[in-house]
């Protein structure tokens, strides 16, 4: 009974936390971008503008929820729901701290990969259902980009799995007690970071929405809370990717002095900050560059990493 209550508490608290953090993230990101670009960012609503995300939510809710007459209605409605659901489900396996977390799957990592792969359907469907040439182009780009980057995203994590000897994320965290995997798996970390950003469609890999060439790409036709779902999906995606990076490479909740939960949050926040810094500083590549980078640089690098790790594991029998 207490097991069930504990799980439900976990589910509800984590869900609320993730949602509010994603919402807050939209404000944090803008403030951080402001800081790095020598300006203020949103600072009008509430103290330091912290209520900006509330204002945004009100605005989104109050907007006309418009479905274009030329759109494929069913898919059009489905698409934003898919992204929100898949990213949230992906968060289910994140081991926040000992005793905190929704589920503890022994194939947690595979589940995460599966969920993040499902996310692409949302983008492709959204682009397709909008029946708008820009949206469709955005959808195409998303499909190609995700397909390409997913390949080495999965592979980049295999080194970690080899070292930890498990797909269970909690096992992976505990396997890092001595040394965080970011040291032995530095190549894996780099490739996973790149793939993660691409999966989250964050700058510099936001080609599916590329507002200056595709007028917001796959969500051109979306308005109101359906747009809001895409928006939240993106931020939840950032949180998930950051949390995964922390779990897989930075020892999860491990750390001295502070309680494990704090460590986890701290590490995740730093990674999120890093993502925002990437957005603030790097320009968007050309599409062919993106693809070439994925297939010609990142994939070989991942395979090389896998080879080395495999060899080391084999040689030392770790």
């Amino acid at each position: 009974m207490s097991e069930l209550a504990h799980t439900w508490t976990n589910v509800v608290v984590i869900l609320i936390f993730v949602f509010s953090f994603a919402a807050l993230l939209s404000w944090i990101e803008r403030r951080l971008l402001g800081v790095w670009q020598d300006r203020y960012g949103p600072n009008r609503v509430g103290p330091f503008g912290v209520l900006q995300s509330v204002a945004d939510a009100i605005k989104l809710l109050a907007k006309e929820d418009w479905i274009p007459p030329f759109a494929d209605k069913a898919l059009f409605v489905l698409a934003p729901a898919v992204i929100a659901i898949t990213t949230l489900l992906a968060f289910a396996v994140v081991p926040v701290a000992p005793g905190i977390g929704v589920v503890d799957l022994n194939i947690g990592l595979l589940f995460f990969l599966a969920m993040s792969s499902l996310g692409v359907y949302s983008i492709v469907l959204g682009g397709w259902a909008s029946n708008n040439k820009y949206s469709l182009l955005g959808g195409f780009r998303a499909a190609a980009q995700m397909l390409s980057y997913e390949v080495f995203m999965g592979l980049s994590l295999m080194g970690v799995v080899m070292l930890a000897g498990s797909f269970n994320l909690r096992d992976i965290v505990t396997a890092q007690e001595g040394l965080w995997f970011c040291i032995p798996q530095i190549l894996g970390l780099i490739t996973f970071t790149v793939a993660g950003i691409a999966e989250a469609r964050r700058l510099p890999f936001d080609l599916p929405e590329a507002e200056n060439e595709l007028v917001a790409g796959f969500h051109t036709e979306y308005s109101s809370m359906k747009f809001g779902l895409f928006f939240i999906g993106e931020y939840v995606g950032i949180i998930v990717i950051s949390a995964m990076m922390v779990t897989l490479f930075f020892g999860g909740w491990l750390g001295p002095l502070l309680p494990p939960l704090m460590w986890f949050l701290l590490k995740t926040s730093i990674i999120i900050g890093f993502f925002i810094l990437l957005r603030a500083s790097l320009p968007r590549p050309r599409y062919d560059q993106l693809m070439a980078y994925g297939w010609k640089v990142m994939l070989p690098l991942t395979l090389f990493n896998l080879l080395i790790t495999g060899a080391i594991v084999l040689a030392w029998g770790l």
Partner: protein
Amino acid sequence: MWNALKTMWTIFLHMFHRPVTVQYPDEKPYIPPRWRGRIILSRDPDGEERCVACYLCAAACPVDCIALQATEDEHGRRYPEFFRINFSRCIFCGYCEEACPTDAIQLTSDFEMGEYDRKNLVYEKEDLLIDGPGKYPDYNFYRVAGLAITGEGGKNKGEAENEAPPVDLHHLLP
């Protein structure tokens, strides 16, 4: 890759710079003297409308947002019957001021003219005309033009600046 990292580092360092944003409207920004803001029509030192409705501002306007109609009063003084600027189209380029041969049309430092209704951005002559001479306190077009103006404060031929008295056609001596 190195470049990308360098960029990120540079951007990161900006965290320690002061924001350049001016917190308008809490803080009033500095307006340079030649700022191109709301357009006005000025009057000459005698208090008469400076605009002689020559249409040059309208012709110079790249967005064609100035429309006027010339007319003449009983003293032979040309003035605009109506003068309309559609500020919802105006791009504040200042070409009208450059084109104006009588210094009538001037751009001011006022830029706070936001409206909720585009209609309110259509300014007629009575909205544009001010009571003073604006940036050029001394200029009076009719003091240099060759046109004769009757009535009070008018001038006959030969009475403008640098004008010889009118030729007497019946005078035969060299």
